């Protein structure tokens, strides 16, 4: 019952945008279904985004022994995209076994992304997995592998600083604003002009909870239009300097050939606002804000080049954190390999009996402690009793599993289920492990069962 795990894909490093757009999978669900019927594979999951396509397949070793699985998947992929096979072969990578597992963990943890540490890839992977579950193409191995990859991504995020610093211009501006003002909740911002990056920075500021956003444009109608979409207030361009008195953060991105905000204006504004700090973000080229503004006390000015430097610095920090993240990925790959081996029946039976023995001895020790001194004969009789109860209790489940191994394709599911029911892999269960889990009620009490509680020896019953 050995399994082949294979991952074939292309990404922003292996292929240019022309190849990526040609071989992007527009209907992933149909592709998974057709691959299941066309190739000797038992499980499939495909992920297709603008930067990558990853096709993960699992096949029985015996069934796929005579087939070049990688070639078969590539041919099917090329056929689905109506493209030639050779260019696809030239731009794809193929990982087998634990290499495929490591690669998937790296993708989930955003170590393989164009912007390392970006969070979107995990969401895309979760969506693809959900689709594969709905299609029925994800079964025991892919289920486990994907759940594990989500937990690896979470671990990497919490244990390393891979996602801690801003790597986009607009987000870097918001991070800087936080270094100046701390909480942005009571602050006011002004967006001067319109430009994609400036609007994005304003959106980030809104998401950080700023109190009010003013929008100013030479064309008042455009300002009103933007104000409507961003829930801000449009102001006339002529009133801008006067309004600066109430504004803490200014994002400017106009097409003006000369500076529209000068140092002498700001000097007056500062007096009126009793020297409260101001942060200017100048994304325009040529610049909208007089560079001398940065020389004033309590005023901070960053232009596009300054922000780029911040982003580059943060990128280098992330590269350093990637080393730590890869170490986590290696450890988790090892854990997955152990689980994969345990999918054979015999290790599971051994683990089950071992667990039963452990529980039996622990409970016996408690009982003997409660009873006080007992003679050797009684002790031996009690040992036989608990051992026999635990083994007999497991007899039927073990027979059931043995019967399933004689059937086609069901053994792994039941073996995996058994391992999870008895928690043989000692996996921690996250609160959000199953999003569709029914709520336990208002209190969300801890899961507990009567058999876990020790019987009260003083109780009359």
């Amino acid at each position, binding site marked *: 019952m050995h399994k082949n795990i294979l991952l074939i894909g292309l990404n922003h490093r292996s292929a240019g945008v022309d190849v990526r757009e040609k071989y992007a999978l527009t209907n992933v669900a149909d592709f998974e279904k057709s691959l299941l019927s066309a190739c000797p594979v038992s499980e499939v999951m495909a992920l297709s985004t603008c930067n990558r396509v990853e096709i993960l397949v699992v096949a029985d070793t015996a069934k796929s022994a005579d087939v070049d699985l990688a070639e078969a998947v590539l041919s099917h992929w090329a056929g689905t995209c109506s493209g030639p096979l050779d260019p696809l072969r030239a731009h794809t990578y193929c990982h087998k076994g634990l290499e495929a597992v490591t690669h998937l963990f790296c993708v989930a943890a955003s170590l393989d992304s164009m912007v390392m540490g970006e969070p979107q890839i995990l969401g895309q992977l979760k969506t693809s997995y959900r689709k594969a579950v709905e299609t029925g193409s994800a079964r025991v191995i892919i289920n486990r592998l994907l759940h594990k990859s989500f937990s690896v991504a979470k671990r990497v995020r919490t244990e390393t600083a891979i996602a801690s610093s801003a790597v986009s211009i607009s987000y870097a501006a918001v991070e800087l604003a936080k270094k100046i003002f701390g909480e942005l909740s009571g602050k006011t911002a002004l967006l001067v002009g319109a430009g994609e990056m400036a609007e994005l920075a304003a959106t980030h500021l809104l998401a950080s909870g700023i109190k009010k956003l003013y929008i100013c444009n030479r064309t008042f109608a455009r300002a009103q239009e933007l104000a409507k979409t961003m829930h801000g207030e449009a102001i006339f361009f002529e009133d801008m300097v006067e309004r600066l008195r109430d504004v803490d953060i200014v994002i400017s991105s106009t097409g003006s050939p000369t500076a529209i905000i000068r140092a002498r204006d700001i000097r007056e504004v500062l007096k009126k606002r009793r020297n409260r700090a101001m942060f200017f973000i100048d994304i325009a080229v040529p610049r909208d804000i007089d560079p001398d503004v940065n020389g004033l006390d309590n005023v901070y000015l960053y232009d596009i080049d300054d922000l780029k430097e*911040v982003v580059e610095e943060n990128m280098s920090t992330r590269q350093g954190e990637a080393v730590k993240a890869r170490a986590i990925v290696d450890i988790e790959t090892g854990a997955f390999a152990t689980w994969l081996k345990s999918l054979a029946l015999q290790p599971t039976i051994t683990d089950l009996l071992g667990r039963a023995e452990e529980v039996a001895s622990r409970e016996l020790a408690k009982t003997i402690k409660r009873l006080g001194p007992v003679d050797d004969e009684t002790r031996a009789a009690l040992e036989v009793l608990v051992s026999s109860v635990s083994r007999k209790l497991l007899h039927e489940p073990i027979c059931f599993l043995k019967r399933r191994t004689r059937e086609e394709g069901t053994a792994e599911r039941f073996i995996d289920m058994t391992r999870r029911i008895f928690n043989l892999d000692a996996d921690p269960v996250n609160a959000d492990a199953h999003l569709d889990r029914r709520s336990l009620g208002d209190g969300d009490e801890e899961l507990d069962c009567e058999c876990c509680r020790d019987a009260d020896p003083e109780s009359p019953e």
Partner: protein
Amino acid sequence: MALSDLLPMLVIALYFLGTVLFVVGSALRQELLKKIALGFATLGFALHSVDLAQLLTVADPALALTTGRFLFCLLGWGILVFFLLLWWRLKLKFLAVVAMPLALMFYVASNATVGVNTKLPPMLTGLFFFLHVGTLFCSMALLAMAFGAGLAFMHLEKRIKTKAGLKTFQKDMPSLDTFDRVNHFVSLCGFPLYTLGLASGYVWAWLSARRVFSLDPKEVVALVVLILYANLFHQRLALGRRGRKPAVMVIVVFLLSVVSMIGINFLVPTTFHGFKP
């Protein structure tokens, strides 16, 4: 060895370890080291409190108030009290880097002044003691915190202004606004306390010697500090000055206070404040 002999050594060791570990932890960005350092500091603070209480449990507590050991011990303790308050209210954990060495320095100074008594007049005990020494020490402890916040403000502001990058700053480092709030709080509370402390001293001088001011070095420096402090208070509250200039002023005021407390008390002969053996 008796507990009273062991206690100062334990407090010094804990403050020293706390200081070193916090500085190393900050340099290496090791949160665990900083947590251990703060644990040492908290334990040291608890023992420091016991030591302080022990000093007051002598036969004549009023006499204990005049000892150099008690006074310096109290100042070090006060600095840590304000640090713990700011840590709790404003999450200014990094101020430990200033509070711990200062607490250590004043605690060591307190033990160096064993057997040395000030010429504190009897009427300065009790309520008057707290009006003069208590208020001045509180004001100085506040200044110590503003000193740390001021240095951090200037460093962070310089990096932001010169676009030198923020890589060396930790994620939990407070913002410029938070540092400035410490300065504001210290100006608002510290100046009235300092004024009250000084005024009570002058009242006593007038009551006892029918004079308010002499050219005693301690009094001269205290007056200079008061003028600078008053200027800071005015700049902040009346003119709304913020940021770098108040930060620089508070650093100067604090350094002058330290000069007055350590330099003049130990090295220069003064009328009432000398610890010079």
